């Protein structure tokens, strides 16, 4: 993990968001390897987008909010 970006405590707090990210990754992987509903360019794109876009969104939000909160915590300690 990027422990240079977040310290151990922050990473622990962020675990709660790592879990859904992990679940999304699991299903992205499973459906990429074993297409459950056949392959159709349009349908499969929609299906995978419904996994990939929330993944990207949640990852981005977790990172941005994690940085903002850890930064604010450091300011409080000063």
């Amino acid at each position, binding site marked *: 993990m990027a422990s240079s970006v977040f310290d151990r405590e922050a990473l622990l707090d962020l675990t709660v*968001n790592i879990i859904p990210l992990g679940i999304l990754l699991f299903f992205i992987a499973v459906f990429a390897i074993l297409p459950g509903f056949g392959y159709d360019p349009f349908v499969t794109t929609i299906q995978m987008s419904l996994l990939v876009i929330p993944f990207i969104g949640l990852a981005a939000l977790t990172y941005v909010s994690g940085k903002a909160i850890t930064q604010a915590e450091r300011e409080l300690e000063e």
Partner: protein
Amino acid sequence: MDLSAQLALTVLMGLFLAAVAMALSRIEDWRSYTPLAGGGAAVGGETGYVSKEKPAGLTRWLTSVDHKDIGILYGVFAVISFGWGGLAVLLMRAELMTPAMDVLAGLGGENFYNGLMTSHGITMLFLFGTPVIAALGNYFIPLLIGADDMAFPRINAIAFWLLPPSALLIWAGFFLDPMTGGAIQASQTSWTMYPPLSAAQANPGVDLFLLGLHLSGISTTMGAVNFIATIFTERAEDVNWANLDIFSWTMLTQSGLILFSFPLLGSALIMLLLDRNFGTTFFAVEGGGPLLWQHLFWFFGHPEVYILVLPPMGVVSLILPKFSGRKLFGFKFVVYSTLAIGVLSFGVWAHHMFATGSIPASG
């Protein structure tokens, strides 16, 4: 009883209730009970006139941009709407006590029941639920984050004042039914407004209903923008992202959800209005299809349920620890997971569509 006698009695009852309200307000100084009165009438004397910028009486309530006043206005409006929605469901439940159409038989029968069903759902969600959360938010968020007021006080006021007209539009069919002899009836589309029924129902009350719903969505979106701007920019020096209270976090997430979902509802409502009145085929079988409405509506509808539940969960997470003297367990977990709900709730709308028959796993 004929219509004119009913109207006369209603007006008389209204006058009587107004007289009761005036008497109650003069019996004692109710404002002396609340320490947050802002040092107005309690300090300045009996006139209640605070300053040139803050008038008293009816003018105050009609023109105030103070967040506490607007919170109270939202609250009063929400309670009145709760009464309407509650009355609707009581009538429905009374009717359902027996299999036969009896209780509502004289009031319009099955059509009236369907109208109540529609009105109860929409009123409870959009005219009670969201406004009562806005009441709590507007009153407490500036106090909790140490701000003077909301970021945009006048937009705050107009956002509230859009609600009474939208309520009148949503409920218009009920009022106009006896006045127009049934030419305009209450909307009988159910609160989810699925086409083809909602597109085909030849009842102008449905159009008024849709317009009112759209107006209330505009109000809610403006409020959401206000909350986001306030929480981001109006925090006091000693309030930062690390020690922001949990209620503010949930209001912030809720406002983000509103920002991205309510405009879509508005668009879908416009499409439905166009289908109904201008012959477009957004939701017609030969055009976009009825399923398109369900996708659009529930893409809004799922974030909507989180819009309704996140702030109350924030209130519980704020109040229980305060009153029990304990810290909230896993405060930062709650913050991050609330934000996660904000993002993830946009991907799951299909779980409202199991009855469409187009999901292979569920037959």
